[in-house]
């Protein structure tokens, strides 16, 4: 088997395992960082919400926010894990297509 084929298979396995990146932090109650990224938590921690931050924070509405589908916030961990895998497939698929196109444009044709 070609090495590239083996590496693609390795990637597919990583994608299937990716929900570990969601479930394991939850298990250890790890979430927000120093800085507590939620606006409410910041209010508690710093005593105010920085004005610029509040304005800029929602400047962009991502179509698949935080690797989860809109409206799925209330669903359980299995649903979120499924969304995480779909997100990985979509995101990695798009990344691969863009790099392939860029590569084809840039790379030398010789061998």
């Amino acid at each position, binding site marked *: 088997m070609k090495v590239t084929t083996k590496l693609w298979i390795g990637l597919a396995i990583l994608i299937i395992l*990716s929900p570990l990146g969601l479930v394991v932090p939850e298990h250890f109650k790890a979430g927000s960082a120093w*800085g507590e990224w939620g606006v409410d938590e910041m209010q508690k921690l710093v005593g105010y919400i920085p004005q610029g931050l509040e304005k800029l924070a929602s400047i962009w509405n991502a179509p698949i926010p935080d690797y989860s589908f809109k409206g799925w916030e209330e669903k359980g961990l299995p649903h979120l894990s499924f969304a995480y895998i779909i997100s990985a497939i979509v995101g990695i698929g798009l990344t691969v297509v863009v790099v392939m196109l860029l590569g084809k444009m840039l790379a030398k044709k010789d*061998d």
Partner: protein
Amino acid sequence: MARERNWISKINERREVMHIPDGYLGPATCGFFYVVMAPIWALASKVVKKTLNAKQVPLLAIGAAFSFVVMMFNVPIPGGTTGHAVGGVLVAILLGPWAASIAITVALVVQALLFGDGGITAIGANCFNMAFVLPFAGYYIYKAISYNAPVDSNRRVIAAGIAGYIGINIAAALAGVEFGIQPLLHHTANGQALYCPYGLPVALTAMVGEHMLVFGWVEAIVTALVIQYLQKQAPELLDPSANAQGRSRACRGIEEGRARP
């Protein structure tokens, strides 16, 4: 249910610290890093145009995909924050820092636009940290330590691990500085911060501390393990004399599914 709601809302507010979100950097910092990155991206395309072989393109795509998925594996510090490896040092070792820079940039832009992972205003800064400084620092540390070592030597595995560890820690320190200077740059008359409210001591300590303790090791292990795997499976990818011709020979080796004779 209340408890469940609580952890769900927590997941959705889940943010790791390496991807700087919108709102934490002021316009000056955001603009500055876009301006800094523009010539780096241009130069990267120029260098890649000269050095990258058509047959290496799939490997570059695999590298970008690898970096993307590795960044999805959030690793917890129990009760505290989460973080992740970037995988960028590995891509730099295999394809050079300029090609790695392009691959990681694409992954970061897709993460920001599609998933809101990293702010769109912070794409310049995030790319500077993770798609420029990280692969370049890692690449030259690897080169320095593995200098002249045989392709199958343990020194290469160790060099890869050290390069991964230091590379991600430098990137984390940069993010810490970028966060930490915000209260100095932007504040109201009565001293309230406008963007990231945490100063240098807090931001830098948190970023570097977490990466030295946990996430740096993840990057180190990931980088070292893959290099060890490739030593057996595709040693031609690690050939130190990999000039343009050597690389193309190496790639032909991959195409034909055999190791270098």
